[in-house]
């Protein structure tokens, strides 16, 4: 699966509040479903999403099974300087995914 779909404006003015949309492919298996034969399907979710801006954390989300499959998170940050926005998702079974996007701030 193309793991993640991220939408960040490529350019912004210093001080402007920008909206960031993230969509990552993941089943977010709740751990409450059972197979036809009654066996519990083990939980397998993304537990944490962190966004850093040139290394400084600007947003964090702690997720539980009630977040829908293929988690979609939209949040804001202030465009302070040009550089890199990095996104990291971590979760059960050693799940770890990182993506980076460059941003130019005038």
């Amino acid at each position, binding site marked *: 699966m*193309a793991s993640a*779909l991220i*939408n960040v404006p490529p350019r912004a003015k210093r001080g402007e509040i920008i909206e960031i*949309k993230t*969509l990552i492919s993941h089943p*977010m298996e709740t751990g409450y479903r059972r197979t036809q034969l009654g066996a519990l399907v083990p939980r397998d979710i993304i537990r944490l999403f962190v966004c850093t801006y040139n290394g400084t954390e600007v947003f964090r989300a702690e997720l539980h099974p009630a977040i*829908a499959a*293929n988690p979609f998170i939209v949040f804001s940050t202030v465009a302070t300087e040009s550089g890199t926005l990095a996104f990291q998702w971590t979760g059960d079974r050693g799940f770890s995914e990182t993506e980076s996007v460059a941003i130019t701030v005038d």
Partner: protein
Amino acid sequence: MRGFRAAVCVVVLAASASAGEIPRAERRSGSDFMSRETRAMQDDDTANPGMLWVLEGESLWNKKTGDAGRACAECHGDARASMKGVAARHPAFDATRGRPVTLEQRVNVCRTERQKAPPLAYESRELLALTAYLARQSRGLPIDVATDQRTQPFLDAGRATFYRRQGQLNLACSQCHDDNWGRQLAGNVVPQAHPTGYPLYRLEWQSLGSLQRRLRNCLIGIRAEPYEYGAAELVDLELFLMWRARGMTFEAPAVRP
């Protein structure tokens, strides 16, 4: 039991006389029956979960594969140009096979014959990704499956399936989707069943899936034995449904509840 409760509802609803094919002016896509929020999910490419499969399809399109070591792009170039309109024209007649084939089957014909690669399993991640990517190239175009004397017998077979009562609930597709569209079935609105957006992200599946998956689910819903993926009955039904939706705008990858 849900199936039984649905049966009681439909038996009451189906007391009205059969309405026949929906007039063109009244044809509406499934997206017209959805909530505003679900529609918003479909209309925004940065928020549509189906786009995850489209993006993977794009990378598969450009990836060398099979014993021939060929990528789809080698023969077909940029899909944005070469594949425009293709999904809106499938199922299409395949002269070698002497019958219509779906987009999924067409992809596998290319894989086995040109790329010398094994066929992709129905509903596999890769096949869904490729067909989603291809379908995306037809978005906005009118559905336009060719009907001529070659495809006529298959179209007629598909039509017969659509109007035939099946399953323990003894229901024909037409009874819900021609005669009672727009009304409620146990809290859900019955759509007209036009395949305007396949493959699509169905909230119930929490995943992207094909039209044949949806058809099999409907068959199970009326307690009929579902045809196997790729079965002639399903391909013919798909051809009929696309013909029935002719002229409607293709909106893949759609989102549906």
